[in-house]
């Protein structure tokens, strides 16, 4: 099953490489990985999406917790949560394609953020399925370049992951 594990990490050099190293060393899967500092500059927030059986996921969370620089973590997929990913896509846009793409972008509630005579650059946020859906809708033949940030997520409601 796909899981989103969200980690509070000491904001120190080398901490990220320990997390990444752990995944490759123990043969765990990383689908996406995002990391950035938080409002507390001593902490980074790292989100990793991975897949595996319940037993593997249990080991992943335990092994992550064992890393000295991991302060806290939560498996967001255990409860209701919000997940978002940002995508920037360059699309070939000439002639009648231009109106068609514009319509599709509107349906997906994206924005065209840069334009040339032959190219649209589109920005789109949502869960990963929605981003996949957009690419499918516009058709891969017109896609020139795709950049995705990877998933970040947060629990719904009052629950917070903090010190």
């Amino acid at each position, binding site marked *: 099953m796909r899981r989103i594990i969200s980690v509070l990490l000491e904001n120190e050099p080398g901490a990220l*490489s*320990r997390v990444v190293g752990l995944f490759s*060393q123990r043969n765990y899967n990383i689908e996406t990985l995002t990391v950035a500092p938080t409002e507390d500059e001593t902490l980074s927030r790292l989100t990793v999406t991975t897949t595996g059986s319940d037993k593997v996921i249990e080991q992943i969370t335990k092994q992550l*917790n*064992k890393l*000295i*620089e*991991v302060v806290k973590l939560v498996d967001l997929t255990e409860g209701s949560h919000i997940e978002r990913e940002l995508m920037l896509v360059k699309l070939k846009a000439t002639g009648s394609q231009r109106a068609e793409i514009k319509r599709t972008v509107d349906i997906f509630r994206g924005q065209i953020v840069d334009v040339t005579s032959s190219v649209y650059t589109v920005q789109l946020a949502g869960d990963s399925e929605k981003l996949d859906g957009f690419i499918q809708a516009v058709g891969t033949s017109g896609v020139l370049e795709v950049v995705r940030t990877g998933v970040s997520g947060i629990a719904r409601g009052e629950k917070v992951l903090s*010190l």
Partner: protein
Amino acid sequence: MELLSGADMLIRSLQDEGIEYIYGYPGGAALHIYDALFRQDNVKHILVRHEQAAVHMADGYARATGKPGTVLVTSGPGATNTITGIATAFMDSIPMVVLCGQVASTLIGEDAFQETDMIGVSRPVVKHNLSVRHPEEIPEVIRKAYYIASTGRPGPVVVDIPKDMTTPNERYEYVFPKKIKLRSYNPAIRGHAGQIKKAVDMLLAAKRPIIYAGGGVILGKASGQLTELVRMLGYPITNTLMGIGCYPASDKQHLGWLGMHGTYESNMAMHHSDLILCVGARFDDRVTNATEKFCPGARIVHIDIDPASISKTIDADVPIVGPVDAVLKEMITLVRESKEKPDADAIASWWKQIEEWRAFHGMRYETSADTIKPQEVIETLCRLTKGEAFVTSDVGQHQMFAAQYYKFDKPNRWINSGGLGTMGFGFPAAMGVKLTHPDDEVLCITGEGSIQMNIQELSTCKQYNLPVKIINLNNQALGMVKQWQDMNYESRHSQSYMESLPDFIKLAEAYGHVGVRIDRKEDLETKLKEVLAMKDELVFVDIYVDRFEHVYPMQVARGSMKDMWLSKTERV
């Protein structure tokens, strides 16, 4: 206010940390530190002949004393030479701090002379690693390193020290922190009371219980509590290779150790049990054999300080995360106060069954009129040293024979590389033990393959007068490899013969030690007695043993715990 250079701070911190010995080897990036060492005499430095040996020495010291070992090396090749030793300590959870010189911080990343990214290289085989970013941080980094290495599930910690952190004429205020607290690292200090209660109820209700103890009992200094609990219950106990000595081997409740080369009765009792109390062990593949066939009727209680060890390979019915001593203490109280008592009839018939198993095999081996059997050597040594020696070993058949036939009644006396299986470990580890136990007998039981992986340390032993006894079970082959080739590759002995062996006697003499060769069975006991009587000499005892011997019992690959070879021809 006390102003010190980084190098002086480092040595001062080691003193304040209570470090007696460091094992190491100098080089460019560590020279400021070596100079600071020279100018004091509280911390003693042992100069090895290869950095790998320094780490195994620190490791042997740590295993025998329960205190963290310390290593000091230079950058680049000095640092990379420690990796096998660090990985060895990591696999067996041995507390240790490895201080590595590094090129100046201004040069890092430029492929400077003797630059290696030691933080990166060591990362998968350390509990943690730290680099020094400012000289003033040194006392805190050192304190942190020892704290992390020796608490929770222990392990090696590497500290990377760029040369410009130790510059002699740059002085800073020295403050040694009294206490270290890390918000992201809080090992459990006791187990969950509800889980402990549940475990005790299950223990008392069991009909075919067995205690399965591991190295965690020794690391957690809980042999006393374990022995008390097991005696109170009257249940059978087995332990892992790493757990040898955690419960007295001479006690009748002890079934010997379990797993690939464990006793018949241990493996049979595990397989047929209805309850396994696992204390500080980790259901390693050399114990469980095929996990899907593991102990089909057993429920499992698992006590470990490391949550990640629980339900990693075998699912636990009752997981208990906590230090083994504290958890066992609570269990003892609960058992004592409980109105429930063990089911006497069920336990009696369980013992009857176990005694039958014990009688069936009983660690027998065939003796011969003229060739010396390796098992015989170990039994003789055990008798002559009254089972009280510190015994280190290397890796191979000799290791298994030593573990099987030397009977340890005390913890910390059997010292081997269980997890990584590092040939070359035994001799330097013995040196680390001897240094701090000068009055105890220290035996290194090795093979002619393994001993050659760190034989240069004969020189170190001369320099520091370390009269260990090297017992070389010379079968003129990489015996364990050869055994597997006999069993799985129709005896095609690909690269498992040792040709051109040195004359070990002359070699020992060349280094200034004594060499003794034993090749006749009738000489075995008298010559070993003579060897042990040479208290102040390192003696290299080269014993020509049966070249065709195999280690048994041996679990059948991919079988269950009860599937074993008992000799070359008997399979159960």
